């Protein structure tokens, strides 16, 4: 029984560790938030991601797992709150272990209205969830 549990734990860890990694590429503008964080499990492996972003703010994230993600799509549960577009980055990154290169896979995520929702990444290399909180724009000081 213990052996089965350990096997299942090991399997779940290896599966989680092999899903694509998302990495922030741009900074938030002054006075705005774009905080992209890992949500890790007991062993420190990334289980999912969370993003706090200001309304009207955009960030770019890249998707990779041993190379750029392929057939990747990022969809929003509620596109009225947050949305994403595929980004066309003209940069090459290592792809595989043989020194080859491939065009980077990236998305631009932008907050549209305050609220909480989820984004879902689906790629050939695996899936990822992003819990998103969109915060309102700060009011200018009078």
């Amino acid at each position, binding site marked *: 029984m213990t052996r089965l549990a350990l096997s299942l734990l090991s399997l779940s860890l290896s599966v989680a560790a092999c899903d694509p990694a998302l990495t922030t590429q741009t900074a938030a503008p002054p006075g705005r938030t774009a905080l992209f964080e890992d949500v890790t499990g007991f062993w420190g492996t990334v289980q999912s991601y969370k993003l706090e972003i200001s309304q009207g703010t*955009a960030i770019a994230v890249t998707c990779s797992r041993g190379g750029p993600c392929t057939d990747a799509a990022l969809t929003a549960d509620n596109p009225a709150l947050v949305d994403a577009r595929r980004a066309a980055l003209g940069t090459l990154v290592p792809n595989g272990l043989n020194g080859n290169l491939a065009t980077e896979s990236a998305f*631009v995520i932008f907050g549209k209205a305050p609220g909480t929702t989820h984004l879902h990444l689906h790629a050939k290399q695996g899936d990822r969830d992003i819990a998103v909180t969109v915060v309102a*724009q700060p009011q200018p000081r009078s």
Partner: protein
Amino acid sequence: MRLSLLISLPLSACAMGGALHQATMVGQCAETDAACAKRHPLAPIAIGATFHPEVETDIAGTSMPNLRLESAAPTVIAVENGALVAKGPGASAVMISTDDGSVVDFMHVWAAPVTAISLARRDGERVAGTIGLAVGEDLALVPTLWSGTQRLAGDLAATWDITGDAKLSVLPDGAGDRRRLRARAPGTATVTVAIGDAKTQLQLEVVP
């Protein structure tokens, strides 16, 4: 320390463009129009004003694709007929995308209310006080918009009003909010330019 300085210099040189360093967005201004407030670097757009952007990309191995703009927060910055229109205070990311929706770059564009106006000649020189004109002479003036100490960008319709005993004509010249004043008869006059609650005045003395 030296290494970090060497790295920071080329990065700061690229800071005028989009967040992905693949595109730039500036105002559509003539090379000779020094008074054009819509030049590089892109200033906040005055609320209510329209900004006509000129977008260029610099991506290795390709000429510029057909591009379109999309705003993340249309209540702050809206995209109308290819131009940016400031709707409310704040900032909004403006995505620069290809026809298939792939984002080539994006830039956060700010909007702010007009709190003051100044006037400038076409060469950008600020004018104030009293200006003398001979009958038949022209003076081109451009309202410059401010939010506190920050100069604003965009075209915003201003009201032009002339009082006094001098005869002057206010002529639109087809370039945004710029006006040409033509002196027609001697005397003195006050030109008042207003946008909402913000206004400025200029004294004119017309001589034969």
